[in-house]
């Protein structure tokens, strides 16, 4: 059997990390081959080498049996390799059609020949069932359609080796279904497909063969149909993994309201549009309430308004006290803990040591300062306790700079700081984003511990599995409105949740 792609003995060294450790990967013509691995396992690096974005230190690449040198994406393109990146590479103020032909424009008498380009694009669109509107501007269309535009870009360039890098991470459940249908269609037409993912469910549904990477090495290649999800997860992580979260016994105490939000509105400064539109909800002690929604539907603004970072209209009650007019510091010292979405930008000072970061929210407390002087010894001891208790792996202990910690350990540091100080409410925004399985488990377990200890947890997440497995109750936000606030994860399925998120279901109580 002839191989479409052969990556032989590929090695790539980054400063401090061996991203690809002599990886050999062979992909047969016409097969859908999944590449499974955790964040940092080397999947994206390998694909970037194949697509010419990086050059490998060692190893050879063969396309259709012939050895090739790929030094940039144009080389890859000439060999028939196309790639849909996780973050799309589209020109936002161009139309769909303009984006598709960008770089390979056909001309007639030195003028753009849009008519023939359009005909070709529409033909491809019909043939592969890729529904698009060629004249819409990119910024006006849905993420799902943007992805179809990316796929059409590859097809327009007559690529027959198609790389999909984490293609479902930005999609709604319904859109995922459609994408999988499209990929199957492409495979049926004889295209060779490389599907990068860390989601077992999708790999099960779409791929024929799956190669598992861990820490830059190939762990094995398995036949997807005959391998269970549990087996693949074990290969990926290197130990047995519980795919279910154990939530333990719930909180038995009084379910008093901890956070109450009434008619909260946040106006966009430039457009004057309401980014948060009359949001009203309550979170009680001892429950995890998730805010589900498609990215950029007002989650960020809602969280920033509650934490006091941006001004808002409406009322916010923290532990029964109206804090609407209070500043960030007041809220932080009166029951609010915040695990921000961007841990490097908002959660930590990367140049500071672990020790210095551990008191970022408390340095002004008498525990850590006396008449303006920081009690260094107390701080260092406190940091050591946090390191111990939260298993923060820091090469030089409290003296390690935060920037040199791995992402998981940075998140553990933030978690330690925010959960160890006095609080009643934890707002966690995308707390497991970019973390490996071990760190994800740790973070989720901590949130559940919080809930069982009677704290209120407000979880904002784009990972629907996380929302479904952790929450006691789900709110859904769409276009700044809380469309539903009483979904129980046990009573609904992902599809239904997806419909709420897309705005096609749910009553707008305030309309």
């Amino acid at each position, binding site marked *: 059997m002839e191989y479409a792609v052969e990556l032989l003995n590929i090695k790539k060294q980054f400063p401090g990390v061996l991203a690809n450790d002599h990886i050999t990967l062979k992909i047969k013509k016409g097969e859908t081959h999944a590449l499974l691995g955790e964040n940092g396992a080397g999947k994206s690096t390998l694909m970037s080498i194949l697509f010419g974005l990086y050059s490998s230190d060692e190893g050879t690449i063969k396309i259709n049996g012939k050895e090739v040198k790929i030094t940039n994406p144009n080389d890859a393109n000439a060999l028939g390799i196309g790639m849909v990146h996780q973050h799309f590479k589209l020109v936002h103020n161009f139309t769909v059609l303009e984006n598709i032909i960008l770089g390979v424009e056909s001309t007639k008498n030195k003028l753009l020949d849009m008519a023939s380009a359009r005909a070709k694009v529409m033909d491809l669109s019909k043939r592969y069932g890729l529904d698009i509107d060629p004249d819409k501007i990119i910024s006006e269309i849905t993420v799902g359609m943007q992805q179809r535009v990316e796929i059409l870009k590859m097809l327009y360039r007559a690529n027959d080796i198609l790389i999909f890098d984490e293609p479902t991470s930005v999609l709604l459940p319904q859109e995922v279904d459609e994408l999988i249908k499209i990929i199957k269609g492409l495979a049926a037409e004889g295209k060779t497909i490389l599907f990068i993912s860390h989601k077992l469910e999708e790999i099960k549904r779409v791929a024929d063969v799956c190669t598992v990477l861990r820490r830059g090495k190939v762990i094995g290649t398995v036949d997807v149909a005959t391998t269970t999800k549990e087996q693949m997860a074990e290969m990926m992580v290197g130990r047995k993994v519980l795919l279910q979260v154990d939530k333990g016994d719930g909180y038995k105490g009084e379910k008093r309201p901890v956070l109450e939000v009434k008619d909260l509105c946040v106006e966009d400064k430039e457009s004057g549009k309401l980014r948060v539109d009359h949001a009203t909800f309550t979170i009680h002690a001892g429950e995890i309430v998730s805010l589900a929604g498609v990215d950029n539907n007002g989650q960020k603004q809602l969280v920033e308004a509650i934490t006091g*970072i941006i001004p808002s209209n409406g009322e916010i009650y923290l532990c029964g006290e109206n804090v609407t007019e209070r500043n960030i510091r007041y809220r932080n010292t009166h029951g609010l803990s*915040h695990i921000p979405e961007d841990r490097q*930008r908002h959660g930590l000072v990367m140049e*500071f040591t672990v020790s210095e970061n551990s008191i970022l929210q408390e340095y002004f407390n008498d525990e850590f*300062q006396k008449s303006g002087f920081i009690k260094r010894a107390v701080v260092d001891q406190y940091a050591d306790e946090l390191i111990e208790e939260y298993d923060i792996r820091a090469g030089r202990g409290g003296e390690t700079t935060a920037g040199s910690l791995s992402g998981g350990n940075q998140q553990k540091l933030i978690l330690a700081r925010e959960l160890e100080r006095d609080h009643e409410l934890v707002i966690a925004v995308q707390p497991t984003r970019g973390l490996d399985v071990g760190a994800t488990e740790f973070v989720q377990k901590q949130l559940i511990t919080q809930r069982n200890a009677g704290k209120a947890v407000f979880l904002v997440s784009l990972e629907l599995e996380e929302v479904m497995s952790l929450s006691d109750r789900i709110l859904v936000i769409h276009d700044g409105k809380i469309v539903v606030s009483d979904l129980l994860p046990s009573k609904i399925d992902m599809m239904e949740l997806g419909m709420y998120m897309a705005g096609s279901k749910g009553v707008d109580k305030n309309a």
Partner: protein
Amino acid sequence: MRKTKKTWVDNFPDLTASLVACVIGLLVGFLVLVVTNPENSIKGFKALLTGAVSGGFTDFGNVIVYAGIYILCGLSVGFAGKTGVFNIGLSGQFIIGGVAALYVGIMWTWLPPGIHCLVAVIAGLLAGLGWSSTIGFLRAFFNISEIVVGILLNYIGVYLANMIILDKFYDSYANRSQAVQSSALIPTLGMEKIFPGTGADITFFVAILLAIVIHVILNKTTFGYEIRTCGFNKDAGIYSGINAKKNVILSMAIAGALPGLAGAMFYLSSSHNYIQIVDSAPAIPMRGIVVSLVAMGSPIGIILSAIFIAYITVSGLDMQLYGYVPEIVDVVTSVIIYCTAFVILIKKAISTILRKSHDLNEG
């Protein structure tokens, strides 16, 4: 993660980078000497290295005088830099501080000696503080670039100083201000006998003391903690509820007080007790930018880098003995100083090399 044995470089990465930067600066300076006058280059370079100590105590006294001013101005840039604000308004703060000190030193003759000097110095400090507060205020509340405001205020400062001098205490014969009353001069503690004709006084020691004070403020206090937080990562500062606006204004005020003080102490010196009327901003305080850059903003490092740059500046003059015209001397000292400014690049290079060797050891 395995702990690797810590080397000197691991413990003092900044100091190492600064030293390497100085050596590279000197080498490039030597290269300029070789290119312009090959025969005398060795002798010239020797003069550059030893000039300030071979020429008797006068030259060394000058090093101390300049070092004191450089330390104060370097601290100013370093302190503002920790908040993430660039103080380029040194000249304006310096000259305004100087003119305020002169005003007290010349006009308020009713003050008793001792007190007179102290009041004059404080006047200079406050003038510099007020002058720079404008910058901090505009930056904090209207987000106006501190660089633009700082540069403009340098010019305004010079012309305002000239105006005050012309109006209040002008010596038309020499086209400069009148001389300061001797009761307002900075105490020398007998240093004029050791370093004759240099104006060496306690400025240098005051500067070192202040460097230590600034070091303590930055590294030991909650105020310093807030300032560094905002300087490294303003967003994290905001998330933790730090009032970033207040800190910008405060740190800019302190950053202006230092050159104001430097100006006061410079013009209240026995060898230079007047301000010449010129239409350009004084260049001496601007060296504070390089001083701080070489030391990467560290107050203790600033003491060392200020002495180094003062030393090179003074020693350089000796190269004229070997046929280097003053312009070349300027070029050489400037080249050295600006090469040392590549210190951050050097620091990065060192850490890359270190990491590679660690990887090799471990792998």
